[in-house]
């Protein structure tokens, strides 16, 4: 060491030389640069070929992107997503509580529900609800084994394609949501409920004020995923013509045969909606992340813009140290 580097007089030979006075040469990753350039070139090539491909018919995409028919379909897709998620979450929470119950009957019923609705394909369930009238022609509500009837209607008039779609998506979602909610409830330290009980809080109040708010932290990220999935799964209900976005897109290309451009229209809208959905998710995560040190500092806007801003933020924070 001595002789090869110039050691300042104030330090002894055994001390490390202060880094500030010597130039630091970072490792140069040539392979990384080559890979980056190659993949950017490939991407540019792909986009270029798509843009120049006449079969894509960008004019058709433009014509239909903001068409009334598309907006009608979007509205159905949106309310169907929201309603099915609400139904799924409400029923799912109920089933989760049943599965945690000490009553073997409630536990068994909840298990059976999850078994059936998670164990059969969603597409089958959608078609099933769409054709439920073939199973029961009339819906009757009354006292069993008597002639007393409070309510009676034809199944077809009650179970419109939209309602059938809602039931199929909502019940299927409930099976998955119940597992997520159950995991969330079980993730809360039992000491929390004990502390609440020792303060004289009754079981229902403890669940509502202490356990569920903490379970939300675990529940929200997967439920966000479920919502995004749901938005896309609504496309399946086109098989029973529920007039969602995908149904209407299919109606159009059944007539003008412009399949690819219409699918581009659909994809653009689904992408846009999914992007928007990540904003409320981030907001909810911050809301229920209160009191935990990790959560609470990433704004929804930042989240929307994704990794780049976050990485910049992290760098600047590290520099501040």
């Amino acid at each position, binding site marked *: 060491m001595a002789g090869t580097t110039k050691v300042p007089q104030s330090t002894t030979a055994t001390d490390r030389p202060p880094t500030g006075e010597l130039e630091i040469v970072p490792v140069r990753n040539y392979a990384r640069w080559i890979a980056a350039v190659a993949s950017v070139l490939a991407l540019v090539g792909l986009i270029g070929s798509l843009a120049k491909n006449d079969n894509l018919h960008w004019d058709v995409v433009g014509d239909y992107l903001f068409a009334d028919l598309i907006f009608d379909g979007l509205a159905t897709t949106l309310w169907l997503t929201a309603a099915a998620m609400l139904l799924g979450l409400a029923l799912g929470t109920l089933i989760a509580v049943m599965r945690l119950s000490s009553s073997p009957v409630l536990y068994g019923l909840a298990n059976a529900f999850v078994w059936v609705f998670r164990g059969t394909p969603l597409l089958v369930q959608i078609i099933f609800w769409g054709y439920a009238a073939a199973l029961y022609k009339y819906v009757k509500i009354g006292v069993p084994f008597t002639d007393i009837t409070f309510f009676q209607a034809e199944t077809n008039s009650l179970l419109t394609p939209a309602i059938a779609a809602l039931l199929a998506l909502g019940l299927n979602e409930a099976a998955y949501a119940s597992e997520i909610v159950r995991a969330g409830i079980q993730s809360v330290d039992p000491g929390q409920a004990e*502390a609440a009980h020792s*303060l*004289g809080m*009754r*079981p229902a*109040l403890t669940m509502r004020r202490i356990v569920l708010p903490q379970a939300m932290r675990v529940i929200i990220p997967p439920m966000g995923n479920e919502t995004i999935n749901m938005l896309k799964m609504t496309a399946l209900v086109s098989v029973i013509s529920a007039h969602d976005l995908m149904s209407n897109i299919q109606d159009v290309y059944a007539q003008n045969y412009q399949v690819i451009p219409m699918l581009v229209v659909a994809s653009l809208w689904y992408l846009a909606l999914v992007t928007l959905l990540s904003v409320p998710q981030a907001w909810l995560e911050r809301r229920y992340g*209160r009191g935990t040190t990790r959560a609470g500092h990433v704004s929804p806007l930042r989240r929307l813009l994704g990794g780049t801003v976050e990485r910049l933020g992290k760098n600047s924070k590290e520099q501040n140290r």
Partner: protein
Amino acid sequence: MSTPMVRAEGVRKHFGSLEVLKGIDLTVERGQVCCLLGPSGSGKSTFLRCINHLERVDGGRLTVDGELVGYRQQGDKLYELREREVADRRRDIGMVFQRFNLFPHMTAVENVMEAPVKVAGVSRADAREHAHALLDQVGLGDRGHHYPAELSGGQQQRVAIARALAMKPKLMLFDEPTSALDPELVGDVLDVMRQLAADGMTMVVVTHEIGFAREVGDTAVFMDEGVVVEAGDPRRVLVDPEQERTRAFLSKVL
């Protein structure tokens, strides 16, 4: 003559085939501090949890302020209480846990306010004022807006004490309140408990702090393997025990 605050007669408890409490007899008079000591697994925490019915008593009689815990006696039958009735009786028994168990999604003040507002029906304004006074009392007047994760263990435990006091309990239960704390933080928590005892609060304390038991306790109870081995004046039990098991235990912890 007034009824004792806690009276246990032959209290039994088992988890499956394991008998954890094998007939505990114990009396805690009003205004007294009773310290439960003993090796881990001796049943002292289980007994403490029986007092506010976090654990169900399987046999014997356990009363708090003259009322049976968890049961209602009619004739010669004991009827198990409904959960809401149990909850109502717990309102005036405060409990402090080894792991604090503060509600992490609420600030210190909100933790203290929760039960008075939601259980006792106190107005938010009154509850907030009382909560601030209680936090002052435990030396955390300036920490009210902090979340538990932003407080040290000792501070969290003092918030937990304030939270238990907010329901104006007639009895306070402490389950190894300083066992999860760094040594230098133990003193602050013990100071608060010392002050509480001086103010006349009836307390049952499961602890390994022999010094605290000797200084503050009115009775010391040494338990081992589900039975009370020795009980009495802590200055005798903890200094010159009669039983060999107590002596062996003390020689290990001191």
